[in-house]
């Protein structure tokens, strides 16, 4: 492999022998030979490291950063991911030395403030969930799913209930749900979505048995629809002795309006990097939080933050029924600080407004593009809308082509081909942080693209046209991924 774009040669390709980025100080101590210290057999004559000036390196990485796309550079309607703006004030707070310059091995009495923040954030999230308590430790959503299922397993073991080996999951669920259940040793059974986009209750009733350990539900579902009969669904599961898990990926629709605990859920996870505006992915780390009802509290991972005598905060390890340690120290503290700042900054009324505007924005898009891209289900949606590009098939254009063409208009594509139950799905989640003007520009781009599909379908099939590289070979990326540079290639 040589250059991956013409603009950006690899560092090694710009290397000039002898060029240096730093000049070391004159040696003022006795010199020792490396061979003596390390052993001559451990020394290499040839070490193909790039030799560059500081400016070469700065320009290389600055140029690469210009190819990056982020929420700070443009609209990012990636459904199910809640790519909302991350307020800079939260980063600023997290960077304060009282938070950023402490160490988890410091004595407890010197980090009381940090422990207090974590303790209070737990309580705030438990309240938002409508549950008894919470743990901030999981690294992200899928981690939280796995740990919740481990707690459910521990719960049945503790009760001496054997044979609860099945986890029920709707066909519209995030792929992580069945993956987490299978990883935990459960058998996964799929529940079908009914014609109205909600769970098919008769199918659920038929599937529930004394072997059911849990039902995993996302509410609102990945179709962007609220499970209107959720109380009845939870009741049915409880009658069979099963627990109900809420995948809280879509909590942005419910903040301050409805609480999973009140609906009957026993355990849920939040994604701090979605709902509570902490950075996503590479800008993270992510933050998963699990909230539980009383029945699962004994099984929470250790350490647990406690508030002794209402004065002293400390980390408790001695929990006989715990599933154990699941993260180094106590999770990602500075992510917790950002989420705390976000919640405290908005307050209860502000959080409710977040959800209201997220839902309003999604419905605005749904209505505005309905002629070009009809919603998969006609009812009012929640914080995201799943539309179908199936109407463009007669021009030989697919949802993928629409997504790629959106890049030319300066937008990050929405999630496509998910949920799998909707043909040619485009899943659009605008979040509450976008203005009406941005939403209008985006909708106009989509409508324009649907016209292009009719007039010049090839333009879509070969998009994007304005990026350093156009379509990547996804098949080769899966089957023959090779990210290593070598001189021979």
């Amino acid at each position, binding site marked *: 492999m040589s250059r991956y774009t013409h603009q950006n040669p690899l560092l090694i390709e710009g290397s000039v022998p002898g060029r240096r980025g730093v000049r070391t100080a004159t040696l003022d101590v006795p010199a020792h030979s490396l061979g003596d210290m390390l052993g001559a057999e451990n020394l290499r004559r040839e070490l193909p490291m790039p030799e560059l000036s500081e400016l070469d390196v700065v320009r290389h990485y600055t140029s690469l950063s210009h190819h990056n796309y982020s929420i700070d550079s443009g609209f990012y309607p990636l459904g199910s991911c809640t790519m909302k703006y991350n307020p800079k004030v939260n980063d600023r707070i997290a960077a304060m030395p009282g938070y950023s310059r402490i160490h988890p091995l410091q004595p407890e009495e010197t980090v009381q403030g940090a422990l207090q923040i974590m303790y209070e954030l737990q309580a705030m999230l438990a309240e938002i969930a409508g549950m008894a308590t919470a743990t901030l430790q999981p690294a992200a959503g899928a981690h939280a799913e796995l740990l919740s299922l481990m707690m459910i397993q521990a719960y049945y073991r503790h009760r001496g209930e054997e044979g609860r080996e099945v986890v029920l999951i709707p066909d519209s669920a995030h792929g992580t749900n069945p993956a987490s259940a299978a990883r935990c040793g459960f058998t996964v059974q799929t529940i079908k979505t009914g014609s109205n986009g909600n769970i098919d209750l008769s199918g659920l009733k038929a599937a529930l048995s004394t072997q059911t350990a849990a039902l995993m539900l996302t509410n609102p579902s990945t179709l962007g629809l609220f499970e209107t009969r959720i109380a009845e669904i939870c009741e049915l599961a409880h009658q069979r002795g099963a627990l109900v898990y809420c995948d809280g990926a879509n909590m942005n629709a419910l903040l301050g309006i409805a609480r999973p605990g009140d609906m009957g859920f026993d355990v849920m996870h939040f994604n701090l990097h979605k709902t509570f505006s902490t950075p996503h992915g590479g800008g993270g780390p992510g933050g998963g939080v699990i909230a539980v009802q009383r029945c699962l509290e004994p099984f929470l991972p250790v350490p647990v933050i406690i508030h002794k005598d209402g004065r002293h905060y400390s980390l408790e390890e001695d929990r006989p029924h715990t599933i154990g340690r699941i993260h180094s120290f106590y999770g990602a503290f500075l992510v917790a600080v950002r989420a705390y700042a976000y919640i405290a900054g908005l307050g209860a009324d502000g959080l409710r407004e977040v959800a209201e505007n997220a839902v309003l924005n999604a419905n605005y898009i749904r209505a505005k593009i309905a002629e070009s891209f009809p919603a998969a289900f006609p009812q009012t949606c929640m914080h995201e809308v799943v539309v179908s590009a*199936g109407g463009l098939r007669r021009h030989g254009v697919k949802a993928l082509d629409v997504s790629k063409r959106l890049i030319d208009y300066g937008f990050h594509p929405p999630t496509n*081909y998910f949920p799998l139950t909707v*043909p040619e799905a485009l899943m659009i989640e605008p979040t509450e942080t976008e203005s009406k003007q941005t939403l209008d520009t985006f909708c106009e781009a989509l409508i324009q693209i649907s016209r292009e599909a009719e007039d010049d379908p090839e333009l879509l099939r070969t998009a994007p046209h304005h990026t350093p590289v156009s379509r990547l070979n996804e*098949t080769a990326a899966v*089957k023959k991924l090779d990210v290593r540079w070598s001189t021979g290639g």
Partner: protein
Amino acid sequence: MLIPDDRKYSVTHEWAKVEGDKVRVGISDHAQEELGDVVYLDLPEVGRILSKGDVFGAVESVKAVSDLYAPVSGEVVETNTDILNHTERVNESAYDEGWIILIRMSDPSELDGLLDADAYRQIVEEASH
């Protein structure tokens, strides 16, 4: 879209072509088109006994992983291991080189429950609108 009339189809988009007492099975042209480029296949062991409707494997594309369902009951007598290293054959030659398994039927009357080319075409066209 190709739907040859020399074989039968299932609603889950497998084709089944009778060869004596055996049935060769693959996925339809429509199915491969929907999936996009296939990158991985999970094949059953030869000798496995399948009941009609059993999941006998999975096909993974750049978009999704989908289960494969047995169109008839019987014993798996051969699998197309060539496609493991040439998954593109499932896309490029869905009805021929991209075949997946060969089943020795235990109940040939089950073939009557499958769709003929016209009925399958109707299902595919309805789903596209």
